[in-house]
């Protein structure tokens, strides 16, 4: 069985591209294929015209592709600042000097609103804060393409709002974003384009409002009969 089949798309520069689909549609697998965690059995991934299929995640970070994970993985025995510092040291710019790296890390923490927790152990902050730390770390690698996997899961409404604002600011900084999220409201509000996946295949693609009104998308989410009932009514 294939988790993803014949899925093909382009990500235009400097846009926020959302990926939605029911559970098991292959969204996270898609991210893993792009960032080298899983090698595709067929197909290619190109980044800025170069074939990067199967490249290790570390090598991709150096080229400017970074990701976050749905399940956060902070370095719990390090401070919040040190967590981000690793990303600055080994990210695209490979900063060597500690003082400079700390400064950059603080900037990333300020962006996600965690600067006041900089010296706290990563194990001692809340899940919501750990989610933001995950974003700060990915951001600190100075990516050109940022893949965000469910960064709003478990966040409160206002935290989600702040996160959406942050995504806009990241894009304004010149970073392209691929974004997977279950929270429909969030993703519809923030994305320039949306791709819908279902059972490992691309179902629809377009602007948020186009996708929202697409018959096949409604069918995938709500089921066929519901859709028919709606039409009759």
């Amino acid at each position: 069985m294939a988790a993803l089949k014949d899925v093909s798309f382009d990500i235009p520069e400097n846009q926020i591209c959302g990926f939605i689909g029911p559970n098991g549609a292959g969204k996270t697998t898609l991210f893993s294929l792009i960032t080298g965690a899983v090698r595709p059995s067929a197909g290619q991934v190109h980044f800025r015209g170069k074939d990067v299929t199967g490249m290790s995640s570390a090598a991709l970070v150096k080229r400017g592709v970074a990701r976050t994970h749905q399940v956060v993985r902070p370095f719990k025995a390090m401070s919040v600042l040190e967590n981000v510092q690793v990303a600055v040291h080994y990210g695209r710019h490979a900063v060597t000097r500690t003082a400079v790296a700390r400064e950059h890390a603080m900037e990333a923490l300020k962006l996600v609103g965690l600067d006041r927790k900089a010296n706290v152990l990563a194990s001692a902050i809340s899940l919501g804060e750990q989610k933001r730390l995950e974003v700060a770390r990915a951001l600190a690698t100075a990516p050109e393409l940022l893949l965000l996997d469910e960064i709003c899961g478990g966040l409160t409404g206002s935290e989600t709002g702040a996160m959406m604002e942050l995504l806009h600011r990241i894009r304004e900084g010149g970073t392209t974003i691929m974004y997977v999220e279950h929270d429909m409201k969030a993703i519809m509000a923030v994305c320039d384009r949306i791709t819908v996946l279902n059972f490992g295949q691309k179902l629809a693609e377009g602007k948020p409002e186009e996708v929202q009104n697409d018959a096949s998308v409604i069918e995938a989410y709500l089921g066929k009969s519901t859709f028919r009932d709606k039409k009759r009514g």
Partner: protein
Amino acid sequence: MKRPLGAAGWIKVILPWILLAGLLLLPATHPSDNLIRLLFITAVWTTTSLGWNLLGGMAGQVSFGFAVFFGLGAYTTALLMHAGHSPYFGFVGGAAIAMLASFLIGLPTFRLRGPYFVIATIGVTEAVRVIMNNLDVTGGASGYRITEDKPFSPLEHYYTAIAAVALAFVVSMVIAGSKFGLALRAIKQDEDAAADLGVNPFTSKLWIHAIAAGLTGIAGGIYARRAAFFYPGDVFAFQTGISILLMPVIGGIGTVWGAVLGGVVFGMVEEELVVHFPNLHLLIYGSLLIVIILLEPDGLLGLLRRLFRLFRRKREDSGSPDADQILWGRGGVEGRKF
């Protein structure tokens, strides 16, 4: 980000200098030959302890196979001396060969993780011991003898060992405070997450393995030159690998001072107690290990820190960690990891 140093901060800075000065000036007080010998062997073991701690403590890769590097250092030094080279050239050669071996061992074994890596290192060290035992060049089971033209000088051996331990200490401190050290700590906690931030876990492990092997190789050479007679079943023994691993674990795994403390305790116990009570040392290690695993995963250093805190009654909230905590450990927040 620099904070003013407190009293404890100053102690951290000057303690190594005081220790070094004391060790260098000690011979002026005409100590007994036995004390010099004891300090020599302690310094040799502490060097291996510091070396192992780089890979096992900082990067979290527990290896039972450091006897390979110790033995290779010993034999390379011996063979180079036999060929007419200076012993110091021999130590460098020993380090180089040990580093080379570390790459050969690391390339396949670092593809494995956790317990699988540990088991692989056990396999490698046993294989190397058996091979070495059957090679003519090592003298096989009948051993190898180093002969030097000049008269035996305990102090030269002593100073060489002190230099080695100082080197290992400086290397450890530099790595602990560097971006590489930070990456190693990240790898120890979550290899995949580290890779997602651009750290290459595989090459990082290869390099720290090589540095650790180099230090262990030097220690092996220094040990062999003074022992003057040794055999593969001794320097390549599985027991040697266990000893090298036990020291930092007992002292406080992952911390530079813990590795030093473990090496000192081990050296003293090994040299003093074994003479008077053969086999008692095994009981002592066993008991220490049980106490440490059950009560204080941060080792003797963690225990000391706890006592220190009891006496001092935390004046300030020391909850915020910073880079130099790697040097002193962090009070068990990391949990009970080997």
